[in-house]
């Protein structure tokens, strides 16, 4: 058993325990796995508004040495630096635009997935707002410092509060506090103020629903989150439902669906590599990745729909006939689709939607087929 004394706590920890959360260790933090129950929390988020504490994640600022400037060229300079580590087009981000990308190793393997945002304000160019995964933040930040210092400086913001407010009622819930939220489209961020307190508000999330992520001050943010939770449309949601929501939405979880051996092409994330980056071929592992784009990867991530009620969990072996052709990397039960859902890697010739597969669940063969992702349509505001 993990010693809870050694676990880090987010600024919202006291609020979770007061709300009766069941706590577990996650990414070195003592985090809520569930409040009233995974299924109820999952369905509430799809229908109303769920509030997730994601303060264990790794928000940071990466800034040009010398600081941000009132000069669009400063954005190009900082973007060129981070583009040595990621295959996404960061130079091409518009002010206030966010983009999902991946940190790559020299073999094109994925070291983490992350969101990079260009500030909207003209006077803050040369700064990037980056959010990496909690379990990977020490690795990621060490890599950024090693590769980009002294040209860029990293400021970790992981003592702050990061919350995701997700679901069809999220905009209406936040509007009284931040009228500007209505002007944001999916993957757009603005700096907003509540009284004198600065907040970064991004229209994004990891549930497949419309919603926002808010970076809040670690002191004043606690009472604000408590106020949001007093709204009858808002319920606190634990990591259990976060996992089932993102799985139904077909979104990858690092360390499960993505790891340092998998490339973006194998992970079916080729769309993360914009055309100009492919042409420039100047990201880590470009040779291998571009060859996989051209010739097709040997294995590929797909959605998998078990055809009976038995969930197939991570590690379940996938067969075509007698031959093992892959493994489940995330699997469970989808409360919205009311059926088991999974993702995994299969050899490419078995990756077509509708392909019949056999899953070996505890030694018993169970029928499944390759399914189109996502299992539940995305409900983003574009």
């Amino acid at each position, binding site marked *: 058993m993990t010693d809870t004394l050694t676990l880090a706590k987010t600024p919202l920890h006291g609020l979770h325990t007061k709300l009766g959360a069941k706590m577990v260790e996650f990414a070195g933090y003592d985090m809520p796995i569930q409040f009233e129950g*995974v299924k109820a929390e999952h369905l509430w988020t799809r229908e109303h508004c769920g509030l997730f504490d994601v303060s264990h994640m790794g928000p940071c600022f990466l800034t040009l040495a010398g600081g941000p400037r009132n000069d669009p060229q400063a954005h190009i300079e900082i973007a060129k630096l981070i583009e040595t580590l990621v295959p996404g087009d960061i130079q091409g981000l518009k002010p206030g635009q966010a983009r999902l990308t991946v940190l790559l190793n020299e073999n094109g393997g994925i070291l983490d997935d992350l969101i990079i945002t260009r500030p909207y304000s003209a006077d803050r160019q040369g700064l990037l707002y980056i959010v990496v995964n909690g379990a990977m933040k020490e690795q990621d930040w060490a890599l950024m410092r090693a590769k980009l210092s002294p040209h860029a400086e990293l400021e970790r913001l992981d003592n702050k509060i990061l919350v995701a407010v997700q679901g069809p009622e999220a905009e209406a819930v936040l509007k009284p506090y931040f009228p500007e939220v209505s002007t944001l489209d999916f993957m757009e961020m603005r700096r907003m103020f509540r009284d004198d307190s600065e907040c970064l508000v991004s229209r994004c999330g990891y549930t497949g629903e419309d919603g926002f992520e808010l970076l809040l001050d670690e002191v004043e943010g606690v009472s604000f989150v408590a106020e949001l939770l007093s709204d009858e449309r808002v319920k606190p949601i634990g990591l259990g439902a976060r996992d089932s929501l993102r799985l139904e939405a077909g979104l990858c979880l690092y360390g499960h669906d993505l790891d340092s051996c998998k490339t973006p092409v194998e992970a079916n994330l080729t769309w993360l590599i914009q055309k100009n980056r492919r042409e420039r071929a100047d990201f880590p592992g470009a040779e291998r990745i571009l060859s996989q784009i051209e010739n097709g990867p040997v294995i590929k991530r797909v959605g998998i729909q078990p055809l009976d009620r038995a*969930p197939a*969990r991570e590690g379940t072996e996938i067969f075509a006939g007698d031959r093992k052709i892959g493994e489940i990397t995330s699997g469970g039960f989808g*409360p919205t689709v009311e059926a*088991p859902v999974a993702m995994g890697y299969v050899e490419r010739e078995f990756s077509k939607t509708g392909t019949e597969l056999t899953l070996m669940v505890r030694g018993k063969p169970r029928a499944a087929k390759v399914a189109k992702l996502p299992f539940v349509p995305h409900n983003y505001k574009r």
Partner: protein
Amino acid sequence: MTVKFTEDHEWVKVEGDTAIVGITKFAAEQLGDVVFVELPEVGASFDKGGDMAVVESVKAASDVYAPISGEILEANDALTDAPETVNSAPEGEGWFAKIKLSDSSELDSLMDEAAYKAFCDGQ
């Protein structure tokens, strides 16, 4: 008819040399929403503590151990289509299997209701 309990949160309702077994209300609450139950096959035999069944919640799969040794006489097939019965009636309609006891002396090592309640309060 006596009802006994195990430290793995299973109940055993004994009638003569057969017993009906299931998981307790405490276990069902801990698991959360049950979405799938893998039942033992009729005719299969288990030693006490053997992996008899699997119960899956949204979150995870958990083994259900045979609370006593014996042969499966009947499995509650209703759970295949309605696994949520384990949550709504864990100690009634949500039973798992009927077992023919191979060693009724094993029952002596199980807890009675009062002892089980004290055991749960201590968890």
